[in-house]
């Protein structure tokens, strides 16, 4: 059911939600940017609706609430292990259509690829989703090409209007009652979505892993600095590494945690004894790009990349993932000719 809601009412309803939930949304971290006197827009806990940033894309995605950057799995003392506690509070996450499509990818990775992940599922069970409408496309977005520009599997949608009021489409029965009880005007609402982006990406129909043999990847050997920013901002990247630590050198207590990992960063493939794969940055780029638009689909039936364009937004070397994907057609031709 749709509602037209003003800021005061929305904040009052937020207050009732906050007794049980933390609300997470893209917000501003003043002076939180890499460069001095710059802000960072990224996900964080918010108290009021005004804090939610609607007019800019968040630099990092929402994924950190489901796959925390650093997540303690269990604690150990000599010989004993104790599972890390379940977070006490549930989460309401505000996200855009691309990110909601990314959530499906996280689900498929953590719940379906091999046995279901205990730590992911216990967070996943306790979230509600608020879809933020997109009135216009942002720089580097290519959601339309990836088919992720529309979503309907939300608990509520929200569009901020120019006058500071909100259009809301509510699917959650309890929330719907709250909006109705607050006297919000009912009206037909459907969340806004974009129908075109300035960037169009075409994944070649005939793309195969043979594209790995193209010379195009060599460009990235020197252009890429293997910093991993593209992976960390990506809402669909899920890799992690295990870490064991003791709280002090002589202490007997410690923990095992898992921490985000990046296939672009040194050490990702290092095995004990010294072996590693993909030493060149171009080969790491190839591994990442083909995962996003080829081999994930071979395994799961749909593309991994959701076209949010955050990887392009953040790359300090101005390497464009979307442009790279658009080069794949030539790469296929090149490889076929060489055969």
């Amino acid at each position, binding site marked *: 059911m749709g509602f037209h809601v003003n800021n005061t009412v929305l904040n009052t309803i937020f207050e009732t939600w906050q007794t049980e939930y933390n609300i997470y949304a893209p917000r501003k*971290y003043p002076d939180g940017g890499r*460069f*001095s006197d710059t802000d960072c827009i990224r996900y964080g806990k918010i108290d009021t609706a005004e804090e939610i940033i609607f007019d800019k894309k968040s*630099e990092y995605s929402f994924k950190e609430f489901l796959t925390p950057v*650093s997540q303690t799995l269990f604690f150990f003392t000599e010989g004993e292990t104790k599972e890390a506690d379940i977070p006490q509070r549930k989460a309401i996450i505000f996200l855009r259509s691309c990110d909601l499509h990314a959530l499906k990818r996280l689900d498929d990775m953590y719940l379906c690829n091999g046995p279901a992940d205990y730590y992911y599922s216990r967070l996943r069970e306790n979230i509600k989703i608020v879809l933020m409408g997109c009135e216009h496309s942002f720089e580097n977005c290519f959601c339309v090409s990836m088919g992720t520009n529309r979503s309907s599997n939300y608990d509520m949608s929200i569009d901020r209007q120019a006058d500071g009021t909100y259009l809301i489409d509510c699917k959650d029965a309890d929330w719907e009652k709250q909006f109705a009880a607050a006297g919000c005007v009912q009206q037909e609402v459907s969340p806004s979505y974009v129908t075109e982006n300035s960037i169009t990406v075409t994944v070649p129909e005939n793309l195969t892993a043979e594209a790995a043999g193209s010379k195009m990847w060599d460009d990235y050997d020197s252009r890429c600095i293997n910093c991993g920013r593209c992976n960390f901002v990506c809402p669909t990247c899920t890799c992690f590494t295990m870490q064991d630590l003791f709280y002090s050198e002589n202490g007997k207590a410690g923990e095992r945690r898992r921490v985000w990992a990046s296939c672009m960063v*040194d050490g990702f493939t290092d095995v004990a004894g010294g072996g590693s794969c993909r030493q060149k940055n171009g080969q790491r780029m190839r591994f990442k790009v083909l995962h996003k638009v080829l081999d994930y689909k071979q395994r799961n039936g749909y593309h991994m990349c959701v076209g949010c364009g955050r990887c392009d937004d953040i790359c300090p070397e101005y390497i464009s993932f979307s442009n790279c994907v658009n080069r794949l057609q030539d790469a296929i031709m090149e490889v076929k000719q060489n055969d």
Partner: protein
Amino acid sequence: MDINTKALKKNAFRITKERGLTASRIRVPGGHLDAKYLGEIQRIAETFGNGTVHITSRQGFEIPGIPFEKIPEVNKALQGLIDGLEINQEELNGGYPASGTRNITACIGNRVCPFACYDTTSFAKKIEKAVFPNDLHFKIALTGCPNDCVKVRMHDFGIMGMTLPQLETDRCVSCGACVKACKKKSVEALKSVNYRPQRDERRCIGCGECVLNCPNAAWTRSKTKYYRLTLFGRTGKKNPRLGEDFIKWADEDSIIKIILNTYDYVKEYIDPSAPGGKEHIGYIVDRTGFEEFKRWALRDVTLPEIAEVMTPMYWKGIKY
């Protein structure tokens, strides 16, 4: 021709090697100006000078080839620049009221440069407002970060931007980028302990390389801006030397106060027979001893808690 060279120099004109010809010296605090003022400089050079302009080593402009008699007209023509660059003035259309305290120079700062830890031009202008006009020979320079592109250590007061890096440990992905950058580009103040960077507060110079290189915004800049203040670097015939660190993690207000206090100190102790009333402050400090300088400089100054004051200070330098 009868002309008071002392008054002419104080008015920011120069006695040149060509009799009767002077050069007008334009100050650009912080070295950044709206492009439209270049047109005004061009007009003055073409109307009153020989049609050339020298870009000075202190980020000002010098318009040579001006006949002495044109000085009043040039001063009038400079009014737009003086107003536009917000230079403190004593007499409208009278040109610059002093030249002893030199133009305050700055690197491009955080308006453009990713390394800079603050807006160097804005701080330079703030200092200019506080110290100018003044006849004492003070050289002040500001640089955005410890790369020191402005070479602040060649100045009486060198101001170097610092940021106090903040680590949100739970955002750290143990990629090692900060440790590597600090080691390769800076002072090796970070090491990895339990998979996460540990910062050696004593070593850290606040350059911000850790923040710049962190791929996951685990390192961020401090909201408060900090500065390293270096003292009494100088070039010159007698005894050139590089400025030495005085305060690490200083704040803006303290720095301005210290500079103003130093004017008082110099007024008290300058050699009355110094040629042209110019004496490098360092020579004065050599005479009075550093502790006396410090007593004057830190009068009514409240430094941030983390500030480190180096004392005593020793300068090295070439001696002839």
